[in-house]
């Protein structure tokens, strides 16, 4: 009996934990703290943070507890991540929640959402240069898309072992958008530019809003078929929302479906950061590249807006370019905030939603392109 007792003791977390578990648990608690106390993307940081705790309780192998063991509960739930099913379901819900009106009213602003995706490809090049394999480099590049589900989807398809670090990097930086973007925005724009006011957008008719998801889907997916799972669901959710007659389906998509999937995705992505696969030199590279890609993406959006202004009669406020990175809706809020620092009566939020949402479409297309080249 004494033997069995010592055996049991040696299998507890207290006996098996080493410094790496402690580090990861501190990271997990930090995520939870940022989500709760700072309101940084709480719906994602809290599940991911708790998932990090669950994935880093030191457990013995063989019983089926760890997320990488075949018959564990976490493994079954993680299947929605590795199979790529969760991200499209989240896009379905996002589609059913998103109002594309502002974008439809000023389609020109969509180009800012395209420009900010430069971050993806420059990071991809940077990752290649740092010695990452092409599939890994593509997955790392997508961090610059500033769009969690897209990043997880592409990584699941191209480099499943990196899901943990890439998701954590992507969500960390998305949460830190209010910290990362403002200095770049102030640096690259003049006070005059930041003071530019945008015109009231025109009224968008119901019919336009119904037709848009169909046309948008066909155009984008004819051009980049590999964006089908993400954009198909996004536009389908939006059609459900706008057509009114399927309101109960839209309601399901934007409540029970997206909330349930968010819980499971956050938790398992967090748990996939088991210390031994997360605390590697690779992860350091991923975090450095991720930070760079957010900066590049922000700068690209801003600069492209300034270039557009050279050709436009009615100038646009270049701050809107920063919203092109997606990170919906945080980067749009940052635009609003930085704009109001100069002129408290200047409301940019609504206008910033246009590049913000087109940035989502842009990074899904970018992910599709990278995926089709890597397969």
């Amino acid at each position, binding site marked *: 009996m004494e033997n069995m007792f010592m055996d049991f003791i040696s299998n507890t977390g207290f006996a098996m934990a080493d410094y790496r578990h402690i580090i990861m648990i501190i990271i997990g608690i930090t995520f939870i703290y940022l989500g709760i106390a700072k309101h940084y993307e709480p719906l994602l940081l809290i599940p991911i943070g708790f998932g990090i705790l669950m994935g880093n309780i030191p457990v013995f192998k063989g019983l089926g507890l760890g997320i990488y063991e075949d018959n564990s509960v976490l493994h079954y739930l993680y299947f929605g991540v590795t199979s790529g099913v969760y991200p499209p379901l989240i896009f379905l819900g996002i589609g059913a929640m998103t109002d594309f009106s502002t*974008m*439809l009213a000023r*389609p*020109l602003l*969509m*180009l800012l*959402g*395209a*420009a900010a*995706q*430069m971050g*993806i*490809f*420059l990071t*991809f*090049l940077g990752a*290649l*240069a*740092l*010695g990452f394999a*092409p599939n890994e*480099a593509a997955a790392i590049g997508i961090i610059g898309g500033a769009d969690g589900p897209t990043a997880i989807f592409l990584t699941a398809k191209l480099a499943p072992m990196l899901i943990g670090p890439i998701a954590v990097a992507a969500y960390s930086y998305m949460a830190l958008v209010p910290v990362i973007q403002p200095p770049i925005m102030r640096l690259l724009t003049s006070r005059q530019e930041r003071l530019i006011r945008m015109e009231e957008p025109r009224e*968008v*008719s*119901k*019919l*336009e809003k*119904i*037709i*848009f998801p169909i*046309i*948008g889907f066909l*155009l*984008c997916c004819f*051009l*980049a078929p590999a964006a089908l799972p993400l954009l198909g669901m996004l536009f389908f959710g939006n059609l459900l929302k706008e*057509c*009114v*007659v399927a*309101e*109960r389906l839209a309601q399901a998509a934007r409540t029970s479906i997206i909330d349930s999937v968010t819980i499971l995705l956050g938790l398992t992505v967090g748990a996939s950061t088991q210390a031994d696969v997360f605390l590697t030199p690779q992860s350091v590279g991923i975090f450095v590249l991720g930070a760079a890609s957010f900066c590049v993406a922000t700068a690209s959006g801003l600069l492209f807006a300034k270039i557009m202004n050279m050709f436009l009669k009615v100038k646009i406020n270049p701050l809107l370019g920063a919203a092109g990175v997606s990170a919906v809706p945080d980067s749009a809020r940052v635009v609003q905030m930085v704009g109001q620092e100069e002129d408290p009566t200047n409301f940019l939020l609504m206008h910033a939603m246009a590049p913000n949402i*087109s940035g989502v*479409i*842009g990074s899904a*297309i*970018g992910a599709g*392109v*990278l995926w089709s*080249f890597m397969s």
Partner: protein
Amino acid sequence: MTGMEAISAHNGWAISAIGVTIVFTGLTVLSLTISQLHKVLAFMERKKSDSQKRAEGAKEIDVSDIIIPGDMKETAREYKMIIDRMDAPFSLPRLLELSEKCGLNRPYSNLNDLIGSGLIEPDGEGYYRWKGPDNP
């Protein structure tokens, strides 16, 4: 392998160039399409209403009618059926609950419409009465 060498070896430049091009093409085409869409719709709308004016005289047609599900009449009929099973005057929360149970669409909004149109009226003591026709 690292640096420029690695990028070239894995076609990094080409992939990035194509990627950026495709993203821009996609959003530009979408942007152009959208910017034309409402003009096309407005044109069709004008044409349609013109031809209808010629056909039916001055009677105006509102497109939104095509899209809004069920007219007030259908709604009124459904709610009347439920109200008939309740005591009069009836309580609004209970009507809401029953209409949700019966699977009626968007009870809050519909009831609001019914009250707005005077088909359902408060009795001044916290309860409500049906004021519409018996067979709406």
